[in-house]
């Protein structure tokens, strides 16, 4: 059975307390188990995901200030290892890489020879996966693994990943995972989960692989006091979350108002720059193109991240089908929040807020939904 399907909520149990000073032992245990550890670190004035080998690379004592169109790092008044929300990167860059080769072609005397052989997927341990990101991975699993066709690249990478989740103990102003029911508590989909409290981490395991790693750690028993502290730390994240998205009416509200003038209003602000789709942990659009040498004897089919905001994306018979910013924004929002439900049985949004923070003009989808809803309701109540 593949790794990710073996993780069930029923498996989740508390394994013990890892003292703060022993966090390096977790990283060492992961490396000893054959994983490259990917975790948060500070680069390019942001907290990004990259390979780490030491706790000293973690952004300890740093937090992020996020608001629509703005992200700033700031030193916090505590020394938490994970006292920040999600940054510009998401784990999809490892599972669904921005660039990959899906097949190759070689010209021979007997015509073209094709191959889909790929190098073995790297064994990666993701350290610091938040609840919204677990949900995003679960959504991309539905897209790439559970449809009529399985994507071989995603599958091989997904099967080779071990997930160490971290429960959020604070929230950014752009977070709204409570509304999408995807957080802040990590409930399933991880091998290990940490909750950071004063003096250590309460560790839960969610799979056999997770229990095997936990068994190598110098865990102490978790007291009532630790439990209470962990629970209150997690509650703090929930309490800090102010942004809301009403989801019950989204499907019909959006798909029932495809011709609403509000799409033109958003289009005056939207840059159609693709940033929201690129930072989104669930967006999965891509384009495959041929890359060949000048003699055209060796050809690679290269898949790259693409976006419904790219004007070329819907190109057909000489012109783009979605030939305006309004139609492209409408495609994105209606897909993410409405037609995604028809396609995959879930919202395409996990409430991580990345699209709000990383949109240069700061377009906030939660706000756009409210504006559309209000405009639709005002119109239906207006007797004229």
């Amino acid at each position, binding site marked *: 059975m593949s790794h990710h399907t073996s993780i069930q909520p029923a498996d989740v149990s508390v394994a013990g307390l890892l003292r703060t000073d022993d966090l390096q032992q977790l990283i060492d245990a992961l490396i000893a188990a054959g994983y490259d550890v990917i975790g948060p670190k500070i680069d390019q004035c942001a907290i990004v995901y990259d390979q780490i080998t030491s706790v000293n690379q973690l952004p300890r004592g740093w937090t992020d200030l996020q608001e629509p169109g703005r992200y700033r790092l700031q030193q916090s008044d505590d020394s938490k290892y994970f006292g920040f929300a999600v940054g510009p990167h998401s784990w999809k860059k490892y599972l669904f890489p921005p660039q990959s080769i*899906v*097949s190759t*072609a070689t*010209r021979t005397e*007997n*015509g*073209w*020879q*094709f*191959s*889909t052989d790929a190098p073995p997927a790297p064994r990666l341990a993701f350290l610091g996966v938040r609840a919204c990101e677990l949900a995003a991975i679960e959504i991309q699993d539905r*897209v*790439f693994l559970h*449809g*009529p*066709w*399985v*994507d*071989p690249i995603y599958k091989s990478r997904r099967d080779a990943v071990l997930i160490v989740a971290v429960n959020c103990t604070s929230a950014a102003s752009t977070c709204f995972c409570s509304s999408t029911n995807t957080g802040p508590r990590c409930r399933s989909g991880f091998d290990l989960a940490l909750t950071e409290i004063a003096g250590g981490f309460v560790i839960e395991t969610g799979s056999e692989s997770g229990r095997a790693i936990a068994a190598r750690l110098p865990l102490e028993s978790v007291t009532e006091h630790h439990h209470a502290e962990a629970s209150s730390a997690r509650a703090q994240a929930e309490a800090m979350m102010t942004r809301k998205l009403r989801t019950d009416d989204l499907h019909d509200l959006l*798909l029932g108002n*495809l*011709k609403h003038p509000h799409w033109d209003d958003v289009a005056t602000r939207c840059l159609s720059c693709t940033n929201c789709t690129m930072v989104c942990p669930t967006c*999965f*659009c*891509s*384009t*495959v*193109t*041929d890359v*060949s040498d000048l003699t*055209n004897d060796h*050809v690679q*089919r290269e*898949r790259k991240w*693409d976006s*419904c905001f790219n004007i070329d*994306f*819907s*190109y*057909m*018979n*000489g012109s783009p*089908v*979605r*030939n*305006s910013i*309004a*139609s492209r924004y409408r*495609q994105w929002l*209606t*897909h993410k929040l409405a*037609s995604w439900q*028809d*396609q995959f049985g879930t919202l395409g949004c996990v409430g991580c807020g990345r699209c709000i923070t990383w949109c240069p003009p700061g377009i906030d989808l939660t706000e756009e939904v409210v504006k559309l809803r209000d405009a639709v309701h005002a119109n239906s109540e207006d007797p004229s």
Partner: protein
Amino acid sequence: MITPFPSSHPHNPWLAHSVRIQRVTQETPGVATYDMAFDDASVAESFQFLPGQFNMIYLPGVGEVAISISGDPGQRGVVPHTIREAGNVTKTLARLPLNSSIALRGPFGSSWPVESCVGKDVVIVAGGIGLAPLRPAILHLLKHRSELDELTLIVGARDSSLLLYPERYDDWRAKGMNVLVTVDRADESWHGCIGMVTAVLDRLWLRDASKTVVMTCGPEVMMWYTVQTAIRRGIPSAQCFLSLERNMNCAIGLCGHCQFGPEFLCKDGPVFCFDRVASRMKVEDL
């Protein structure tokens, strides 16, 4: 009972099969039918498709393009595709000599509902090159002609030089299909019907509208008005089927290009029941 062939799924959906251009038949200006033969005998043996499905035709170094299969689903070994020169792939293809090595992935997508035609009347409405994706359904239905009642094909084109497969119409008539041909513009040499396919459908004698199945392929606006006409004639919209087109890149529902509202045209389509897509067909830039 009509039992269409099941589609065959290759293990890795990105793996292309090498094929040779075995024969090229010029159809209309800029349109030709390419018979493609698999290099690998075992692939040739196992390759099966349903009427209405498509392949991704691949020219290494140039790219891929989604093309409906236009051959007989019962025929093995050779897969015909009727292709109009439009972009880089199709223009390059048109310049390749016979026996050139190219490739394809497939078959992909949904199919015409030929199974549900048993005991019914069938009206097929094609515009221009839209006849190509319908041809496998026509050939299949003609082979099972006795299981249907009325079988009619309405073919339209801008002018008579753009009619697809005109040399086959008499053979199809002989096998029991009523073939009605109409053109938008005619010169002195044309002695047939002039006007839209919808006008022909409007006047068509229907034995029992409630038991009639409509399959249409052509420009989107033509298909829309064809179905509107069918509905006006009393044919249930649930029995009207059409084949839609969008930019297709992966053909396996993973790249996002071909979305039409909640549908991925490559895996949910290209053939749809009208009811499933009707509301979205009138939304601009969707």
